[in-house]
């Protein structure tokens, strides 16, 4: 394997992606601490699997996918351990904060936290992280048509929540 040159740079490229990976993980987990744990796990996994990364592919999409899979594994492990439904509390919390503070940023984030998971993932990858539909569908391992309809439903729900919050 002659990717030493490429894989040399990858850790630094991953460092540069850390802010976005954290942001995506926060949207997934709705908890800052969980998000950092998941990102750390994902980064460690990614480094052991660098040879699986097709260097023609986008590194951000590949990393988002690993972050998401790390979170899926974590949720499974937790439900095995304690049958706790993860994240519901965090979502509520954000909602309460936003009522108190009324800044647009918090309203949007609170609305996001209340979206169903599949819509939240789609909105987060396309609207927050700016991935093209095709890349986002790839990260979520779903057809582009499915991504499009989740995105459309997610946006509609966000729009409704935000309008309700304003009136």
């Amino acid at each position: 394997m002659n990717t030493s040159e490429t894989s040399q740079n990858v850790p630094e490229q991953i460092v540069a992606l850390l802010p976005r990976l954290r942001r995506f993980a926060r949207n997934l987990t709705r908890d800052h601490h969980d998000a950092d744990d998941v990102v750390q796990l994902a980064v460690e996994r990614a480094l052991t699997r660098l040879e699986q990364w097709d260097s023609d592919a986008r590194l951000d999409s590949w990393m988002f996918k690993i972050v998401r899979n790390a979170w899926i594994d974590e949720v499974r492990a937790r439900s095995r351990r304690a049958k706790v439904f993860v994240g519901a509390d965090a979502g509520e919390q954000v909602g309460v904060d936003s009522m108190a503070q009324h800044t647009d940023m918090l309203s949007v984030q609170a609305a996001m936290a209340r979206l169903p998971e599949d819509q939240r993932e789609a909105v987060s990858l396309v609207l927050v992280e700016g991935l093209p539909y095709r890349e986002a569908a790839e990260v979520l391992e779903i057809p582009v048509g499915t991504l499009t309809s989740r995105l459309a439903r997610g946006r509609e729900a966000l729009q409704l929540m935000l309008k309700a919050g304003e009136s």
Partner: protein
Amino acid sequence: MSIPDETLMAFADGELDPVTRDAVESAIREDPHLQLKVAEHRALRQRVESAYAAELEDEIPARLLTAARGATSTPGLNVISLEERRPPERGAAQPQRGRGWTVPVSMAASVIVGVGVGFFLWGRQSPLVQAADGALVARGRLAAALSNQLAADSSPGAAVQIGVSFLAKSGDYCRTFTLGGDSPAGLACRRGTAWEIQALAPSEGVSGNESGYRTAGSALPESLLRLMQERIAGEPLDQAGEQAARASGWKPAHP
């Protein structure tokens, strides 16, 4: 003409193929209702995007930087290992004395500021110091130790030993370090999320020490002490000060 909302959304996102895009474009030109829907999609996108823009500015925890730079114990990676700073074995040609590194004589004289890129990069797989944006920055274990290690944690056997931490007149936090054995000592200051190497100098007593082991409290080279005295604002940090600075992520304390 009725256009499904998903298509309008994809239009707003610039995701349609050229043929469909042109068709939608001419349809909405005639229809203020459709124009409004597209504008709504764009506005929402903009609103969501800006609601999360500030998160990119958040300080990245050291543990994530360390993980990303491969400082894990998992084999087969670009593991950052201080051992690798030693030049590769070249069979019998390797000198017996086994001194871990050699400073070009001209460099050994005093403080080395802005040393060449090639210097100290012999680890190749795992440099502890790397050139980035015209500065030398700490990497790997050195960066991790500068971010996380307290002077009190620096046992004689530790790969990186932290000496004195202080707030510089520039408002940045700076720390001196030694790399154990007869490797160089240095001064690094926190700039943004990196530790910039200000100076490297051979450890005191290099020539007399061939065991690769130094006892606790290895003295800082004169030249580094002088540099430190020039830069320091007030007193060096005590342990509580170090802990507080670490907790703040070594954020510069500009007045």
